[in-house]
């Protein structure tokens, strides 16, 4: 039972001062084993905050990140799943499923986590899943101002993943979940 937090696009301090208080009260250290951060934090203080939640932190570079040393992509294996991480501004058209699928095949992962659009999405295609945790602060994006703060928590347990989606809608935290399973044998279809 491994808890993985997928979060990103905070744009602190440029577009938002901080995470919403209700999110902050829920994110306490000791519960989460890994953090996948899509990028655009943007400053070191946010990095330190995330590091305090969980020592195993993975970040990829967003176009506004002040630390230029973050990689463009990252892959890691957690349990039976291979996860990939990328900010998403490199994938054109932004948020397009086919292009994201190309990246997924390229990285050869089961679950791809990207951001940049600031909208939560979870797609399934060809044996892979693409998850966009949205923006945790609700910062405006290049596309729209109408953004609900959101992040994602994945509970990886053997071959099954339960994805909990946390969204702040009208000041209240709303939690949904998505359940999916991987078939045992194949990792990739090509």
């Amino acid at each position: 039972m491994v808890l993985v937090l997928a979060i990103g696009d905070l744009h602190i301090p440029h577009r938002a001062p901080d995470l919403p208080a209700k999110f902050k009260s829920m994110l306490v250290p000791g519960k989460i084993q890994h953090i996948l951060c899509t990028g655009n934090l943007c400053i070191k203080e946010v990095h330190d905050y995330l590091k305090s939640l969980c020592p195993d932190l993975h970040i990829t570079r967003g176009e506004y990140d002040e630390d230029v040393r973050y990689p463009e992509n990252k892959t890691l294996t957690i349990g039976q799943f291979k996860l990939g991480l990328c900010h998403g501004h490199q994938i054109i058209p932004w948020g397009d499923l086919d292009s994201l699928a190309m990246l997924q095949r390229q990285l050869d992962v089961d679950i791809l986590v990207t951001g940049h659009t600031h909208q939560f999405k979870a797609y399934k295609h060809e044996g892979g899943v693409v998850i966009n945790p949205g923006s945790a602060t609700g910062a405006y994006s290049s596309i729209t101002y109408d953004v609900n703060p959101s992040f994602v928590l994945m509970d990886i347990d053997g071959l099954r993943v339960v994805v909990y989606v946390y969204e702040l809608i009208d000041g209240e935290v709303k939690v949904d979940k998505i359940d999916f399973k991987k078939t045992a044998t194949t990792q990739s279809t090509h």
Partner: protein
Amino acid sequence: MVGKKKGVPEWLNSPLWSSNPPNDRIFSSYDTGTLSPDPPPSPPPPPPKEPSPSRPGLDGAHRSEIRAPARESSQSWSWPEDESLEAQLLVDFQITLSKRIINLGELRRLACQGIPQSLRPTVWKLLLGYLPLDQTMWAHELGKKHNQYKTFKDEFLLYPSEITSRMEASEGSKYEELNCLQRLGLLSRSEIKNGEHPLSLAKTSVWNQYFQEKEILEQIERDVNRTHPEIEFFSGGSSFARANQEALRHILVIFAKLNPGIKYVQGMNEVLALVFYVFRNDPDETDAACAEADTFFCFSELLSVFRENFCKQLDNTVVGIRSTIAKLSQLLKRHDEELWRHLEVTTKVNPQFYAFRWITLLLTREFNFTDCLRIWDTLLSDPEGPHETLLRICCAMLIRVRRRLLAGDFISNLKLLQNFPTTNINHILHVANKLRGPTVD
């Protein structure tokens, strides 16, 4: 003080004492089952010979304690009478256990002399009140208890994700298969039930409770892994050893969840390990297979007797561990004032330094396994009750090494008492027996 032996004091503090031929004159004067109170004003004189090192596998009768190792090696031979006494004891036990309704008083009397290895699990279960005295009820009772344990396991040993999935399975929900041929599609979202999500801060949330108990679970895990590293049974690395550790872990977790008042305290694992060892090595195969369930209930029973030792809030009260240690002190003062004065006043060895471990762990860390089993036989069966008996045995332990204590200072005494030397366990029990008497408060 009888100090006429030619032993040289410079190895007084050595834990290994060589042995001399036995001198029976002190011990031939007692008889089986000396339970009549006979409190001497001073302790029985220490024997002029050195005590023989305790022999593993010695389960014999009270009388047959003097083995005579010719050398310091572990080779030893027994008096021919002692073996027949052992056999006699076995027969006595078998007679008592064969009755349909077992006489508890008779059983206790016999158990005080030491229980034969093969009968130990059964007798302990009877003494702890786990098995009813009516033999015909045994199967029924055992069945009931085993089922109860199974429900406990189902209820308490699951991860939160398993619990929530179980809740949903009963309500019917579906998975999205990753591998289906549909190429494109948004994954469907569903509402969570009862506000159950991993970051929930609600008191009733399964997840929240899991994280709060996580610390205790980790503590239990750590302690189980380092229980008795010297014994194959627990730390062998074999799958048998791992299964045993798993069983210990399960029992401790379930106990902690069922008893939120004391939860888990370090040291419980030692007490549990001994009980589990005895039950798991039951010569009867079917009994050994359900050792986990039996151990759980007997362990709970044992802890309910000794509950006060583990409950932090009771530390400073009349029933807490501090007052128990004070009682031990008083007992020592009553029986051997010279030693008491030397220990507490002159060398300032506070009894808390050594007696705490003796009392809370019921002496499991002070003696080797076999000796512990013998001590527990007496502890569980003595009519005066386990608390009193434990204190008497601790007092006897102190008196047993009084010569070395009287000759030592703070450091050497502390070292001696915290690593109690291997001694003849029957001798200590004999001394403890002699300490019976009206208790002072």
